[in-house]
């Protein structure tokens, strides 16, 4: 076989299933060759797809102890059976690998149009192995697969890379997932961007991609996604759409985007401010959904098949040149997407910056440079705290890192992506930075990954959710503010939280496996309402319990990977600040997180031993023994 050629695949007509293509594209970057493989049918059934199936591959094929930035780590792009179908928000793909930031398994999820395009090209997964000898990109056009030279794109931002690939390849409908300079420079929290503004954002999946010298995957697919039982499938789709249409959640997402959340977290005293030193931000109104809509919104933008369209395109407008950017070659002129709630918080409240112009620009920089804005903002916030207490002095930094400084936000965002000056320290994330500067407690995260925008002292349940998430600090596996603000739970108490978090993690994980966006759940379209669509699409009849069990199986696979990687109970922890320091004012004053009360309950709820190791009987029950 010549480099770049693909061995004959098999026709999907051989399968009487739908949803899945049943095929994996395995690309060896070291040799520049690709092969197409069939996915074992039983694996598809046992994992549904996406995150779970990819975790199964990773556990089978990668030594969990491997250095995440070595050629032995693998980078898996995984769609689900509903990706590329009209199930509302069936847009998602996941990047599964050993995370550069966390040294744990990670699953980073992104929308846009890239995932569906991969399905239309005929593949459920792309598994990237080895390391390209020079900057390269993968070009996929249905059966045609090539590993091509990307040296002309190396160093370029996400926008220029996508535009350049479109020009070079000249194929209408091409979709691009790529890294920016941050991924090339191995910034520990680099992300993979697709369709310019959508991110597989967390845990340094872009760093792993950069370590493989892989700049981009450009894909165009002209095939289709088959459905096993079309009639039942469309019935399910229409029912789901009807139920979502007028739901308040859908309307709020569409009108205000995710940034509407900031009013809620502020009201609860759970909006982490200045590296979690406070629980409320006095300038929050500058950053909320209303302000963004009234002053910046250009248009709503949907991901593939999305009937919500929470995405917003916003513009900096007249303030385009307000902040100078030194190294970054492309000046802000265009509309960009965001800011999302997490971004507005990380680049805003957490750094104490209440200037929406600065937040928008930093957000755009993060997107174009290919960095996770959550970890970027949170790491800068940690550095600002170290500057505040004198650990970092003016000798370390080229400009004062005061909380609230828009200048510092913009300049350090850029410097981080290029590892310039103190940016080189920030590029390591707050855990490594804090350890190096002798203050590890400044890291507000778990397993090395910075927390998103919920202070567990305002939402007690987030404490156990953060501590136990397989990919470190993360809000997407069990979002306790839901039940904690609607009267199900007292937000400050521990009772019931561990049990709820364990069950919810199973549910969201199974949801991720399908390829449908998690946000349909908040718009009256939770997992249980589209189990019939999963069955109809795939031809495998699943009950809701089956699906939840698959979520649990996936969660345990991820846990096994982490344990074999050397993580222990000690990594299911929270920083001292959350355990010992209460806020002095506001609705969450006086509250600390009682993890000791929740963690043992969580372990036993999961069927794990007191050290957090899945018991033999649990593994047998899940078919993992």
């Amino acid at each position, binding site marked *: 076989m010549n480099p770049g050629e693909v061995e004959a695949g098999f026709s999907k007509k051989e399968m009487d299933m739908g949803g899945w293509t049943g095929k994996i594209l395995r690309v060896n970057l070291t040799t520049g060759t690709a092969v197409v493989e069939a996915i074992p049918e039983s694996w598809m059934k046992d994992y549904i797809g996406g995150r779970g199936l990819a975790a199964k591959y990773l556990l089978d094929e990668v030594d969990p102890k491997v250095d995440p930035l070595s050629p032995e780590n693998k980078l898996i792009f995984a769609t689900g059976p509903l990706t590329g179908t009209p199930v509302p928000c069936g847009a998602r793909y996941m990047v599964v690998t050993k995370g550069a930031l966390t040294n744990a398994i990670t699953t980073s999820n992104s929308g846009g149009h890239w995932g569906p395009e991969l399905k239309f090209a005929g593949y459920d997964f792309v598994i990237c192995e080895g390391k390209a000898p020079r900057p390269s990109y993968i070009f996929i056009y249905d059966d045609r697969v090539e590993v091509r030279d990307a040296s002309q794109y190396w160093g370029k931002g996400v926008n220029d890379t996508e535009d350049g690939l479109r020009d070079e390849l000249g194929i209408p*409908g091409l979709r691009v997932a790529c890294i920016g300079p941050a991924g090339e420079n191995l910034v520990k929290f680099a992300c993979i961007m697709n369709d310019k503004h959508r991110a597989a954002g967390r845990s340094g999946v872009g760093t792993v991609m950069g370590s493989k010298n892989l700049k981009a995957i450009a894909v165009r697919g002209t095939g*289709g996604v088959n459905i096993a039982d079309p009639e039942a499938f469309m019935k399910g789709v229409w029912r789901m759409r009807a139920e979502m249409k007028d739901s308040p959640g859908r309307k709020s997402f569409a009108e205000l985007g995710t940034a509407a959340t900031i009013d809620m977290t502020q009201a609860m005293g759970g909006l982490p401010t200045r590296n979690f030193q406070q629980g409320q931000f006095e300038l929050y109104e500058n950053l909320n959904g209303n302000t963004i809509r009234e002053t910046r919104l250009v248009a709503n933008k*949907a991901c593939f098949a999305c009937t919500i369209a929470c995405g917003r395109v916003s513009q900096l407008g007249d303030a385009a040149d307000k902040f100078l950017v030194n190294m970054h070659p492309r000046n802000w002129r265009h509309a960009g997407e965001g800011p999302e709630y997490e971004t507005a918080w990380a680049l805003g409240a957490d750094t104490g910056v209440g200037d929406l112009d600065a937040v928008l620009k930093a957000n755009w920089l993060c997107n174009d440079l290919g960095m996770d804005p959550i970890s970027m903002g949170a790491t800068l916030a940690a550095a600002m705290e170290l500057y505040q207490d004198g650990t970092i002095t003016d000798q370390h930094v080229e400009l004062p890192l005061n909380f609230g400084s828009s200048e510092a936000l913009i300049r350090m965002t850029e410097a981080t992506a290029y590892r310039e000056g103190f940016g080189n320290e920030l590029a390591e994330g707050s855990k490594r930075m804090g350890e190096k500067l002798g203050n590890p407690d400044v890291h507000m995260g778990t397993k090395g990954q910075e927390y998103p925008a919920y202070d567990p002292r305002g939402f007690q349940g987030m404490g156990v959710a953060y501590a136990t998430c397989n990919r470190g600090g993360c809000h997407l596996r069990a979002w306790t503010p839901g039940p904690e603000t609607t009267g199900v739970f007292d937000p400050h108490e521990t009772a019931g939280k561990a049990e709820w978090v364990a069950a919810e993690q199973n549910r969201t994980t199974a949801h991720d496996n399908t390829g449908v966006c998690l946000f349909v759940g908040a718009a009256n379209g939770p997992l249980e309402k589209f189990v019939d669509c999963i069955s109809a699409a795939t031809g495998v009849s699943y009950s809701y319990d089956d699906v939840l069990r698959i979520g649990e199986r996936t969660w345990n696979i991820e846990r096994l990977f982490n344990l074999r990687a050397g993580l222990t109970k000690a990594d299911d922890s929270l920083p001292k600040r959350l355990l010992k320091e209460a806020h002095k004012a506001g609705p969450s004053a006086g509250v600390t997180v009682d993890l000791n009360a929740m963690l043992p309950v969580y372990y036993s709820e999961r069927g794990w031993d007191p050290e957090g190791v899945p018991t033999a009987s649990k593994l047998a029950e899940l078919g993992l023994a």
Partner: protein
Amino acid sequence: MSKVLNILPEKCTGCMQCELACSWVQTGTFQPSKSLIRVNVFDEQASYAPYTCLQCDEAWCMTACPTNAIATDRATGAKLVIDQLCIGCHLCTIACPFGTVFTLPESDKASKCHLCGGAPACATSCPTDAIEYVEADQSWFGPWAAKVTENYVNAVGG
């Protein structure tokens, strides 16, 4: 009077549900590359323009076809491709000023919007009502199409 598709780009979010629905009608799978409605994306402007056949009163595709393979559906006014008569010469695709006649790579025959026999799947599937199926005089499309046609005639000196 017959009904037409009325497309309102300012409402469109670029979700491609219409392409999915149309491709389903054409192929029985979800395959946007086979959709007869296409959503043009202008990313930098955050603007999306779905477009498909306008079912012109005096249709250029029909005029151009040497074998009379395009005919008017009496029930809906849609211009239909008659597969058996199409010889794959592509003249209609060149003649259409809107670029909404396609050819199918596998058969090399013309393929264009047929209004789904009066129940357009794209309009039904659009979550933002950016595609409506309305009486012809309710649409901005018709007068605009007539104007484009007139300009075209003037330009080519017809």
